């Protein structure tokens, strides 16, 4: 997984990830167009498929709206790396198949850096700066959800559907 970094600060909340004005739909295409609009209008048009969000602590705090990780994933972001996540966002991201990686030492990455995520190794390589950041390994059952493509697919598999 290789993509350019988009840097955000601490406490990025769900109201700025996807403002409530767009909660009258759950269409990923519409949500994707407005991703991060509350903090960075135009973000979605700058994202290239595979890009990576790198943020500070408490990413995704606030509401339980799954629209937030859906908007991020739908606009082309392949993973979110943060020093820490708010818990509902974290669950939602994994549940829709968007990797959310806890990496407190990713703070030295800068906007536009090229990053490579090595899921199995628990490492993120900054190809621009020749640095490597570690991320906390995910519990096995969460990895299984992610590998199945999300909780829906995982549950279907579990129930034999």
């Amino acid at each position, binding site marked *: 997984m290789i993509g350019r970094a988009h840097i955000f600060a601490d406490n990025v909340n769900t109201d700025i990830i996807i403002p409530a004005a767009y909660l009258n739909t759950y269409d990923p295409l519409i949500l994707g167009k407005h991703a991060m609009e509350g903090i960075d209008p135009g973000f979605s048009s700058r994202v290239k498929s595979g890009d990576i969000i790198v943020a500070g602590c*408490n990413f995704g705090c*606030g509401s*339980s709206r*799954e*629209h937030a990780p859906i908007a991020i994933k739908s606009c082309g972001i392949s993973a979110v790396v943060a020093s*820490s996540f708010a818990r509902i966002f974290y*669950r939602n991201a994994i*549940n829709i198949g968007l990797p959310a990686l806890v990496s407190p030492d990713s703070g030295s990455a800068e906007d536009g850096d090229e990053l490579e995520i090595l899921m199995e190794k628990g490492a993120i390589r900054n190809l621009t700066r020749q640095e490597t950041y570690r991320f906390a390994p995910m519990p096995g059952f969460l990895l299984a959800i992610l590998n199945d493509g999300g909780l829906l697919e995982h549950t279907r598999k579990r129930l034999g559907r």
Partner: protein
Amino acid sequence: MLEAGKDNTFVTVTTVAKIRKEFNEGPGNCRSASVLDRRVFGHDRMTIVEKLLGWSSGTEKVSPGMIVESRRLDLVLVNDVTGPLAIDQFRKIGVERVFDPSKIALVMDHYAPNKDVMSAAQCTMLREFAREMGIKSFWEIGRCGIEHVLLPESGLVKPGMIIVGADSHTCTYGALGAFATGIGSTEAAVAMATGKCWFRVPESQLHRIDGRLGRYVTSKDVILTVIGKIGVEGASYMSMEFSGSTVRAMSVDSRATMCNMAIEAGAKCGVVEPDETTIRYVAERTAKPIRVENLCSDEDCTYAARFEFDARTIEPVVALPPLPSNCVPAADASHVEIDQAFLGSCTNGKLEDLCIAAELLKGEKVNPRVRMIVIPATWRIYREAMQRGYLSIFLDAGACVSCPTCGPCLGGHMGVLADGEVCVSSTNRNFVGRMGSTKSEVYLASPATVAASAITGHITDPRTIR
């Protein structure tokens, strides 16, 4: 002085006496036993939340960090924003029916009454799903209200329950001694299909508040003070347990305001040990209480942190934008002029909140430069506030009284802010753009501070008014 909303009961006294008798005597002693559900919790150096998660997962002893699966959820909640996606996902799972229609609640509150054609379609999805699945906990507009006030008020929340809701303020229900936490839509879909959900057992923080709160100091000031101390990440992934004589003396509604905002400190849940106040509240609202035994934190349980607060030192406060943790005395923000004063939401749209605001606004006028919006959280509260004369007081003061909805709190409708506008609000979040324009500002405050500020036109410590 107006009557405080302590006796906020909607059933007859005879029914209450009957239910309480059955509750106290239990199923073994009661021939017509309406109490069928009895939950006995052990003593094993556990906090109340550890006991609840242990019980629901069939694990005798749990400790923080363990992942457990709750095998029998008592209630799964979705609303008109999170529900449509959950229903869509539910259909993709490939099961025909929900795991138990009596354990699912569908509440139209965020964009209801329908804000526009798209939100109308979302409400229709809930309506059709309720009918198709035989879900009784669905209320049409006119009988509906804000979910986190409506469900406890309808007797659906009880001590000992395990509740998940596709809304972050689901943590409110901890006020009744339940384990309750927010999840997303896909997870709610799976919970509706299977009745199960996994949890990481949280560390617990103890917040002990003792002493008597001063005049016009409310539970909202207490929780803003707590979050001000620990920060918006101060309880991340943890359980915030509230105890002490101040909390014991609070109504269930006041406790609910505190647990409601646990999420604003990043917590997984807020919780208050159930006591006589809880039991009475529940008995007044349901014919089927759960009989719980030993649902308390053991004396030798482990807390990740303990905090103590002296209620006598807590003042009316506001949280400055853009974080709920930016807590300062209301008096220190008196230079802030306001455009809108909002009283309502799942945090503070309850009868006692309207009561304290009415007391301050009686015979007063809302400042000519200010618009005040009052939204009773449910129709029961609306009716009761009307009968007690609060609504007349608001109207006479020049405030607008709207029908139950979450609307303005999330910048949805019925009170959205323009560029540069400032709102003092009894809600729970003051993030950038929360109530409308990203160039507007929200100051969080208690109902008393909102009412006082509406009168003066700037942020005002309510003690300076009366």
